[in-house]
């Protein structure tokens, strides 16, 4: 029979690859990041221990506070629209059947699997001030051509719009799965009682889909707080300071200005913000809508 210690060795062999990778590539870098925040180290190389100076600097750094503000502004522009539009599109897809349904779902979902660089190339072209086809739409709405990404006011909404275009497929998928779990009997019964579409949505769909909505909101919130890729690429042409977000500020301090210690402090603050926001949101979403 198997002995207890032999079992432990077998278990150790199973978990070893993951645990070793986890310790070296996750736990150690996390601890090291915290230690770095107390030093004035450059990106590569040792630094002096300076206590809490980096943290004090953080709260007096206007560029950092701006980055925090821009990050939350971006979250505001993306999280709720992306979730609600995702639900709307999912309901629209869910009404269709067969071939047409797959086709419409594909239209919403395909952008989601594209690499960020491809999304960047597509929208850089469409929004191009001189030649972009999107300028016709912009002219129709705003009244004149606008170089969206380089514009102080339009840059963030434009990047948020592109982000929603890119990522909504994920939300649509989750909502469709949720909608399919709602029994058709409920709708049939309510239709007999004379409920219209709005009442069906308000009193059946919305409360029953709420767990999925809460899940999507949570995933979106944490994801969008970490915004970097598309924003960095789109603003390569300029307007960096009006759109600087937290991850970009880590990049700027650590990699461009060679301030490893301060960059790590910004990174740690991002971690802290994500923890606080997740806890707050968890508390807020536990409440069920009525």
């Amino acid at each position, binding site marked *: 029979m198997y002995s207890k210690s032999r079992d432990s060795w077998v278990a150790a062999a199973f978990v070893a690859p993951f645990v070793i990778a986890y310790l070296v590539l996750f736990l150690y870098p996390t601890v090291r990041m915290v230690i770095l925040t107390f030093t004035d180290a450059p990106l590569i190389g040792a630094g002096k221990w300076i206590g809490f100076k980096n943290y004090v600097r953080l709260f007096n750094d206007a560029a950092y506070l701006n980055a925090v503000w821009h990050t939350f502004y971006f979250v505001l522009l993306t999280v709720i629209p992306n979730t609600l539009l995702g639900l709307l*599109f999912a309901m629209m897809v869910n009404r269709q059947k067969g071939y047409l349904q797959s086709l419409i779902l594909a239209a919403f979902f395909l952008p989601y699997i594209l690499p960020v660089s491809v999304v960047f190339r597509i*929208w850089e*072209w469409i929004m191009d001030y001189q030649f972009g086809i999107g300028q016709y739409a912009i002219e129709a709405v705003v009244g004149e051509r606008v170089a969206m990404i380089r514009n102080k006011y339009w840059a963030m909404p434009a990047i948020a719009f592109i982000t929603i275009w890119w990522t909504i497929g994920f939300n649509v998928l*989750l909502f469709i799965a949720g909608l399919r779990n709602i029994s058709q009997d409920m709708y049939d019964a309510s239709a007999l009682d004379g409920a219209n*579409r709005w009442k069906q949505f308000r009193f059946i769909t919305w409360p029953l889909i709420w767990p999925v909505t809460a*899940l999507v909101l949570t995933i979106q919130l944490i994801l969008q707080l970490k915004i970097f890729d598309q924003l960095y690429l789109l603003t390569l042409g300029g307007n960096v300071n009006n759109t600087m977000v937290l991850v970009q500020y880590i990049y700027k301090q650590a990699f461009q200005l060679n301030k490893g210690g301060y960059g790590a402090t910004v990174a740690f603050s991002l971690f802290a913000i994500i923890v606080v926001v997740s806890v707050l949101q968890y508390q807020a979403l536990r409440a069920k809508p009525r």
Partner: protein
Amino acid sequence: MNILKIDFAGRLITLITLAIAIVWAFPLYWALVTTLKPEFEVVQPGLNLLPKTWTLEAYTHVLTTTKIGQWYVNSIVVSVAVTILVVIMGALCGYALSQLRFRGRTVLWFTVLASFMVPIQALIVTHFVLMSQFGLINTWLGIILPQLIVPVVVIVYKQFFDSVPKDFREAARVDGASEFNIFFRIYLPMNWGVTTALAIITFIGAWNNFLWPFLVSTAEETMTITVGITQVKDNFGVQFARNLAAAVLAALPVAIAYLIFQRRVTQAIMLSAGIKG
């Protein structure tokens, strides 16, 4: 009368749905069709839905003047390696957490769950320091290693192994099968579907990853395609067709993987969001 009215509203919604879907997919079509036009035609005003002159000039230009072949090789090596390693490590660890009783099991499980809290983007500074200490800047391994921490794969495997009936295991143990045999002959084959789904989504994720490969590869030769097509510029004129042609080439493998394994991709997305599909 009333039935007619409802039908009308339903059709209107279907029409609106179709219109939105077309608008949503249009940027993809527009990008694709642009790559088939000569550059001078690309910048002509108006909505020209088809090229007047069809040409592959943009593609041949990208293929002959950039290092796109090398980037492709880099992307394939990195994505395949990340996929294999993540899936194997996740399956092994998930199996141990699900089926074996050992000291530290609970601690390990909560550590895996807690790691969701730490954003990988916050670790870029120390990952870079670590990789440079290992001498791995501008290498395949340097791009691969920090992408290996994907706790959700462990969690998904644990859930699926949990739901395999215990009888299989007992029977195999009675026959004298070792844990490795049970894992490779029973648990893994019974869950091939999950493995395929996780492998595809991990591959797409690794192929699309931007931030880390961008930071760790500064030399043109070691860039993945996702990074390469944004970092290297030609020095002359307008080149929308060429830029987009490079983008289409970069998107091709993930688009094909998605089209072939559509159902698996959907399943994997549900699984990683915590919905067992």
